[in-house]
């Protein structure tokens, strides 16, 4: 985005600030944080509180980043919910049941995610099935395969695996007994995605594709390859979280992971991504994820009824969509007045 205003010669401008797509998400985050900090007190504002919501944010955030990119490009991915247990079962069965090296299990788990993403991408680009339906289909298919294969191979629906200290240290440890190491992985993912979306040319391609797929293709953007790549990225993110959960909790379950489907979409929407594609930002998605996590954990520190948390998240979601529209309209008007 160009920060050069035509009239004001440089310097700080409220108009520029409001025009930034993240502004709404930032305000939302600050309001929510202050609200829970005032109720949760010192414990919530200290290291235990920060690590508590950052641990939640990191896991959902690693998935929300690629899911957000997909939504910017105009696609949904609901299959992440069953890729998480599929990859954690794969890793636990390879490394725990067959006692192969941890690296084999990790590569196996990640490959499952990449493969499911590849299939999703193929279905969406080669057929006219909307991604919402295609990924619901792959979600159920993967869920069934995970269950069937787990029972076939292990005869049970949960597999225990105790990772070696290095693997555990890299993927499933709590730094200072509190901060899950996945927080740092999340930061790493944010850096990579920020570069791809806002620095490298590929980012503009994603936005263009979400704005108008036909025009994007006519402009020479390899839309099919890009779509398949994005689905593979979200499969990879979900598989990564699945593996991190095995290393952390030392057991893989066939169930679980379904909550990540809507949670990741909510993070993305609270973060200001336009549901119909074409608009959004990485910083916005990160802020949306943090807001979501603060509400989720703040509830327990504030000693409120947990059901109120769900109400707040629901209200936040609606407010986010409404305010994003308002900010977008504001930005449009602002730009026109300048001319």
């Amino acid at each position, binding site marked *: 985005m160009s920060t050069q205003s035509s009239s004001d010669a440089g310097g700080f401008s409220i108009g520029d600030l409001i025009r930034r797509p993240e502004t709404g998400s930032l305000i939302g985050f600050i309001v929510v944080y202050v609200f829970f900090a005032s109720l949760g007190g010192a414990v919530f504002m200290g290291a*235990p509180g920060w690590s508590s919501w950052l641990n939640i944010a990191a*896991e959902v955030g690693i998935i929300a980043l690629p899911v957000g990119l997909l939504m910017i490009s105009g696609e949904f991915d609901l299959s992440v919910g069953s890729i998480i247990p599929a990859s954690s079962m794969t890793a636990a069965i390879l490394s725990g049941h067959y006692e192969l090296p941890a690296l084999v299990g990790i590569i196996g788990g990640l490959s499952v995610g990449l493969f499911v993403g590849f299939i999703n991408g193929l279905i969406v680009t080669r057929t006219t099935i909307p991604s919402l339906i295609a990924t619901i289909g792959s979600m159920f298919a993967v869920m069934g395969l995970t269950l069937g294969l787990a029972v076939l191979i292990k005869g049970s629906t949960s597999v225990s695996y105790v990772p070696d200290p290095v693997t555990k240290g890299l993927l499933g440890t709590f730094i200072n*007994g509190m901060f*899950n190491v996945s927080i740092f992985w999340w930061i790493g993912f944010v850096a990579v995605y920020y570069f791809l979306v806002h620095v490298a040319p590929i980012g503009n391609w994603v936005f263009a594709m979400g704005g108008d797929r036909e025009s994007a293709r006519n402009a020479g953007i390899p839309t099919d390859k890009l779509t398949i790549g994005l689905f593979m990225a979200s499969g990879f993110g979900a598989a990564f979280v699945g593996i991190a959960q095995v290393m952390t909790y030392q057991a893989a*379950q066939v*169930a679980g992971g379904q909550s990540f489907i809507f949670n990741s979409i909510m993070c993305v929407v609270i973060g200001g991504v336009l549901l119909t594609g074409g608009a959004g930002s990485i910083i916005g998605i990160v802020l949306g994820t943090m807001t979501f996590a603060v509400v989720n954990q703040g509830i327990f520190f504030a000693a409120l009824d947990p059901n109120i948390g769900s109400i707040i998240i629901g209200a936040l979601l609606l407010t986010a969509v409404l305010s994003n529209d308002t900010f977008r309209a504001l930005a449009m008007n602002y730009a026109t007045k300048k001319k």
Partner: protein
Amino acid sequence: MSITTRVARGLLATAAFTMVAGTAMAADIFVIGGKPDDPFWSRVKKGAEDAGIVAQAQGGSVTWLGPQNYDNLGPDAAELIRQAIDQGADAIVGPDWVPEAMDPAFEAVVDAGIPLVIYNAGGLDAADKLGAMNYVGAVDAKSGYAAGEYLGKAGKKNGACVNTLPGAANIEAFCTGFSEGIAAAGGEGSTLQLPATAFGDATAVAQAVRAHLLQNPDVDALFAIGDADTNATVSGIQQAGKAGQVEVCGINFNESILANIQSGSQACAIDQQGYQQGFFAVSILNNFVNYGVTIPTREILTGPGVIDASNVEQVIEGVKAGVR
């Protein structure tokens, strides 16, 4: 209507049914249960299927009906019961998870003259009220009570039940029983209610437990309602820096829970012996439909059994032998 007249009516109905069924000699038994990928329910299912081997040898069958998820448990399960009736079940096994939603469907089973066994949840009260033949299972309140009593006797004063599935009758009973058990041993109990979205997400459960422990330093005992939740609860305790101070007991067990009991990071596990629930409920109905034989003992208890450091080795042997 008194219990005796209900039982008498039930006996008349079953006698009439036996005469009709006398020529059938093949029991198509429908079992309503949890998600087949739920670790606990997969054991119940295995028990039901193992009993089904006998049913199959006699020309019958066992069909498992489970919901896709637990988001709408009561109505979904009621729908499954009606499906079983529509598919021509000769006998039905079902848990009374959410009585308000499910009882009308169970009443339809009894009205259709189909023998019914309530298992896993509801207790003998539900079986009597609905006119079912028997109840097979652990009594939830007793399971919770056993955990509360165990922790209370271990010197714990303030226990919290981690409820990840608020609204389900059996989970509420676990938590109530837990509070009563720890109160009987001189402590006090409370419930930590999680939003329904946390169910099945280990990180969400662990972080909720941790936040609760940090905000309520008096809590020195926790009770988890399932095996995955127990692992997450143990992690939450460790992240709160309270390992060794806060003891945890949980419903059900798996390999890592047995390892945790061995290493001391978990105090006890309450075993409902799910395999027995599926096995006996199906066996009772199969024998009844085929031969009219009954089990006069009402309320077949399959639990609670307490697993702690004193007997964990035996249980591990049982797991290896495929029995538990």
